């Protein structure tokens, strides 16, 4: 239960093809994250799977049955929306009960399910409130509760945390991860948050303009980005990409080095530069280095604190084994 496969699926809005032919297999129990820049088609893809949009061509299979033409309610999937899409005029209890009521479940069975979900999600005290009286995190939990009670074969999340503030986001992220561990149901999760993608996913799907750039585990993407786009997209702060003579020295059109993969010295090193802004976080220091002759601003991350003032000259040495090399097409060189 919960296996989804897309075969040569395309989607056009009017004349604009938003998703060119696309294949994707999602295994049972997997936590798959779609990432990509805004407008790349993440939501569209999710909605195609949900059945909220018709495919223009291609086949979507859910658990080996062709679901391409099934209406959303028949696909056995549950979706959690970015806006939560709670029913504002119903209490939390009624919200969660809604899919059960629509399925015609009897009251006692409904109550049992609702209580179980509410307990699991820490919502027991709020069951009689309206969504408007809840905090963002609580609303999110209600939305998840509404999804859970249906016991879907897969959950679809569309940027579920993007309306929450940073602290809450971390908490909810963990809750969803734990939920996945517990339920072991397939989850498809759309986000544009780096950290969410890296920390939650079993498998990340990187999209650009409707095209899958790379599919793989988070660390695979971090260590072996298939191309420059993925390299730049995964990792924060961004990988430093250097072109020109320096890159050619390594037999590549572009070389990339992550900010955390360089060491710094006051006296010697591979590259020389001038400190622009140094950001001291206590735990880390980010140094923005100018005038390296390699690229505009090179970013450097040092663990812990380091003395570095605006205008200081410093030397940088990349860890050579962590250097990424890309050809003129932007593809990774091995």
């Amino acid at each position: 239960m919960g296996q989804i496969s897309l075969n040569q699926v395309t989607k056009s809005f009017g004349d604009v093809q938003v998703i060119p032919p696309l294949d994707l297999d999602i295994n049972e129990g997997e936590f798959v994250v779609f990432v990509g820049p805004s407008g790349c088609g993440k939501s569209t893809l999710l909605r195609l799977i949900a059945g909220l949009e018709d495919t223009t061509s291609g086949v979507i299979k859910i658990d080996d049955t062709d679901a391409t033409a099934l209406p959303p309610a028949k696909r056995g999937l549950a979706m959690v929306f970015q806006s939560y899409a709670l029913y504002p005029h119903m209490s939390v209890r009624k919200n969660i009960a809604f899919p059960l009521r629509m399925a015609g479940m009897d009251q006692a069975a409904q109550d049992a399910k609702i209580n179980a979900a509410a307990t699991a999600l820490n919502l027991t005290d709020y069951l009689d409130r309206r969504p408007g009286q809840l905090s963002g995190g609580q609303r999110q939990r209600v939305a998840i509760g509404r999804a859970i009670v249906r016991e879907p074969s897969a959950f679809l999340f569309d940027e579920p945390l993007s309306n929450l503030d940073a602290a809450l986001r971390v908490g909810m992220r963990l809750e969803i991860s734990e939920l996945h561990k517990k339920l072991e149901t397939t989850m498809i999760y759309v986000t544009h948050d780096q950290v969410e993608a890296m920390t939650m996913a079993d498998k990340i799907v990187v999209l650009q303009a409707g095209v899958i750039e790379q599919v793989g585990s988070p660390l695979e993407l971090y260590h072996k980005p298939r191309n420059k786009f993925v390299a730049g997209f995964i990792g924060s702060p961004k990988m430093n990409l250097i072109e020109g003579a320096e890159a050619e020295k390594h037999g590549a059109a572009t070389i990339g080095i992550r900010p955390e993969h360089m060491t710094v010295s006051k006296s010697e090193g591979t590259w020389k530069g001038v400190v622009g802004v140094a950001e001291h976080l206590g735990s880390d220091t980010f140094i923005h280095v100018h005038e390296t002759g390699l690229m505009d601003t090179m970013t450097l991350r040092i663990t812990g604190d380091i003395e570095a003032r605006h205008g200081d000259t410093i030397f940088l040495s990349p860890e050579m084994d962590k250097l990424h090399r890309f050809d003129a097409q932007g593809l990774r060189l091995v």
Partner: protein
Amino acid sequence: MARAISKRRTVIVTILAWTIGLLIFFPILWTVITSFKTEAEAIADPPSLFWFNWTLENYNVVNARSNYPLHFMNSVIISLGSTLIGLAIAVPAAWSMAFVPSKQTKNILMWMLSTKMLPSVGVLIPIYLISRNLGLLDSRIALVVILTLINLPIIVWMLYTYFKEIPIDILEAARMDGASLKSEILYILTPMALPGIASTMLLNIILAWNEAFWTLNLTAAKAAPLTAFIASYSSPEGLFYAKLSAASTMAIAPILIMGWFSQKQLVRGLTFGAVK
């Protein structure tokens, strides 16, 4: 939900919507058509929709008999005048309610609205006597004042709802930027709320244009607007359907045309700012 909607359904919806739209519009259309018939054709059995001898005769008769330009101008002056004065009074009031709310704000607003529920007939004689004593019977001034007062609650309410949509930050920014209260309202609030103000204006012009109790009872001839004009065609001796239609068309056409041209604003206005 951008899912393919079946062709058949679109066709059914189109037909249904057009049918209902035309049905609702039909009385007006029929009036306009009848205004081009002769009196005999107007009551001909069976009635004919388009196939008759179109004539402007009725318009000529109406024009000869009534001073249409005078009534038209009166309508324009009264509805525009009352709306503009109403706005001038309501903008500051709505500003106060929207941006410096107090515990009473809502009560005041509701109270204002409730004054609209008072039956006008109940106070006709007093108002008539007051107008007489002030020498304002059959004057545009009296009507402008009264219609201003009648519509003021609606104007205040609409503006209030529009103003509330404007983030107070922006007014505060203006204040930080050194704007006085007057500049704040004039340069920031008013232009920002312009669509809302326009809707309010349009709606109130319509309400004032169509107001038929005070305009009829407080005017004789000089200040009589189109509502009074139409009253002289209501049931004369003899056949009058065609002439009535012509007069009706002349009375409603200006506002109908204005309404159609400013449809978008108006639709917004029609929602009284209360529904987004």
